[in-house]
């Protein structure tokens, strides 16, 4: 089956996935038999919840009063002047409770967990942002919570590890494999297989076995729905383009999905090129990967000639994953969205530029989106409206940035 015939242009870009969780040839349910009943139970519970006004009302109420939504749509005036081209807006999801978009999805999934009568929460985390968001909602609902985190990431992200512990979560170090995010996900899956009766696995990105890519997307689509309403209010028309960074792709699909059927809105996702695509040390699954099957879904993966998974690299721990959500794989295959990449260095430069132009410390993840904006905005006309997803704040990254800039945090010396 060729990619093209399998991914022929649909009537709507928003209708997926099909009943078996496929977006074109991507997605699916590639999990051990032990998990299949759980996956099917989750899907049934989600279908019911989706049609339940009470579930929606509780989700919306928590997003408003606990998370702090709607997040502002901010006109980045000085960045716009600096670029002297497109008119740039930021969707300010970094102002959410816990400092990133991750909490939107965690609120939705913990409500599902409670509805399904699950009494124990597990999650994987890379940088720790999804771990912190999961520990937060687990504390809010009084459920015990175990976070799997690669031993190497625990070293790199000590402040977030302490945050999770303060929130009452148990952080389990994963030493298997390469001891990073993909191994944390393997270990969370192993826990889930072992404790299948009472445990709910809160996956943090729009990937994994069906129905996770769909439900994470739906919970994150609040970003795009708000942005759409806000830009219509501010400018009286839809934007010309959307830009978001992409690792697994939850912030990106959250912004993009409500605009997929607007043909005049161009959509760009920015992958992490790490040290450069030609160095082999990057996290750009679309630019540098091929289709394969990992963590429950078929998608683009970084892999070698034998189909073994290659470790990803990015200065941004949140983008440091060797795969991408299956809906993105499909949007790439059919050409509805463009996937570009920027390097660690370009993201670091954008981080500093934005801090000084707008008084916003972006997380290193959206710094990738900003780096792309700095390249393309100057080439666009002044009536071009662009929305960039500012999906996380950069406070968590100051140690990484200091190290990259050669600053000693103890003395401030450079």
């Amino acid at each position: 089956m060729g990619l093209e015939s399998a991914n022929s242009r649909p009537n709507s870009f928003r209708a997926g996935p099909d009943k078996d969780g496929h977006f074109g040839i991507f997605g699916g349910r590639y999990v051990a038999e032990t998990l299949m009943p759980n996956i099917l139970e989750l899907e049934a519970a989600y279908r019911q919840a989706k049609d339940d006004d009470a579930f929606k009302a509780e989700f919306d109420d928590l997003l408003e009063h606990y998370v702090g939504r709607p997040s502002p749509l901010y006109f980045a005036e000085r960045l716009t002047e600096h670029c002297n081209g497109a008119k740039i807006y930021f969707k300010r999801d970094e102002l959410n409770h816990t400092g990133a978009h991750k909490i939107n999805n965690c609120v939705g999934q913990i409500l599902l967990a409670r509805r399904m009568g699950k009494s124990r929460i597990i999650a994987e985390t890379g940088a720790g942002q999804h771990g912190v968001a999961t520990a937060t909602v687990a504390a809010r609902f009084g459920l015990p919570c175990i976070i799997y985190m690669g031993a190497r990431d625990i070293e790199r992200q000590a402040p977030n590890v302490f945050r999770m512990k303060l929130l009452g979560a148990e952080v389990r170090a994963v030493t298997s494999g390469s001891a990073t995010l993909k191994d944390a996900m393997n270990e969370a899956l192993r826990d889930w297989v072992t404790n299948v009766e009472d445990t709910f696995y809160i996956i943090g990105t729009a990937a994994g076995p069906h129905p996770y890519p769909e439900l994470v997307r739906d919970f994150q689509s609040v970003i795009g729905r708000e942005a759409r309403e806000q830009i219509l209010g501010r400018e009286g028309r839809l934007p010309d383009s959307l830009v978001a960074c992409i690792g697994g792709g939850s912030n990106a699909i959250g912004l993009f999905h409500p605009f997929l059927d607007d043909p005049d809105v161009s959509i760009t996702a920015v992958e992490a090129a790490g040290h450069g695509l030609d160095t082999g040390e990057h996290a750009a699954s679309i630019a540098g990967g091929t289709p394969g099957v990992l963590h429950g879904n078929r998608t683009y993966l970084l892999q070698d000639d034998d189909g073994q998974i290659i470790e990803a690299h990015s200065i941004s721990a949140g983008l440091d994953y060797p795969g991408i959500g299956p809906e993105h794989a499909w949007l790439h295959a059919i050409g509805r969205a463009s996937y570009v990449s920027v390097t660690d260095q370009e993201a670091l430069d954008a981080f500093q530029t934005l801090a000084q132009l707008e008084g916003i410390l972006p997380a290193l993840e959206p710094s990738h989106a900003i780096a792309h904006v700095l390249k393309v905005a100057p080439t666009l006309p002044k009536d071009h409206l662009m929305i960039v997803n500012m999906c996380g704040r950069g406070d968590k990254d100051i140690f990484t940035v200091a190290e990259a800039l050669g600053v000693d945090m103890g003395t401030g010396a450079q």
Partner: protein
Amino acid sequence: MTDHFATDRLAARFASLKAEGRAGLVTYVMAGDPDFDVSFDILAGLPAAGADIIELGMSFTDPMADGPAIQAAALRALKAGTTLNTSLDLVRRFRPQDQDTPVILMGYYNPIHHKGVDSFLSEAKAAGVDGLIVVDLPPEEDAELCLPAKDAGLHFIRLATPTTDAERLPAVLRNTSGFLYYVSITGITGSASAQTDKIGSALAHIREKTDLPIAVGFGIKTPEQAAAMGDVADAVVVGSAIVDAIATATPEEAPAAAHGFVASLRDALERKAS
């Protein structure tokens, strides 16, 4: 399809086990662990040591259903340069000396997907492989590999688990062939062992729905446990404990360590039967 299975080693082996009146011993080792040559010596000696059926692990970087022992074995094998192709080479080299012992490849889908399903199946069949166990392909994804494998004359052995309820069992059994692999616990390979009485009643329910032989595995570590499980199952699978015996021995001693342990398992099963 019957033509493809003209030399059905699995059917012949289960028939002879039935005639002997004992449970079979299925031994799992990781292809290429600790390296190709030692791995071949281990494989070559398994039938004489007492293995009735051989499961050969295909190494993968992300073995999400495996415990620490098999995870480590996969990493050792990969480090020694093992690939899906060299794993097939092991079977190719093994088969001329042993026409009777079934060899099942067990692993994860991605390396097969990457190689290409059709070429993998034809090379595996030609090498002398008898069946496949691919952990991350549930019945919902049968079109990927299960159905093509059966067309190519390879058995597709499915796992049933304690979470496979009466409603789901027909889907699990539908395209399964060779035997059914019953996972005795909800968990990963090498976990704590399950209670034999619970397994017995679970197997009784499954036997109402199928005539396939049933092998029980995950968590069987000692000759005593193997013998106890042999009371209720048609075969018992031991993996992590053999892999551990290989890991703790030097490469020179690894074949003898593996074969000695396998012999003790077989001995326990024989004594139980007699």
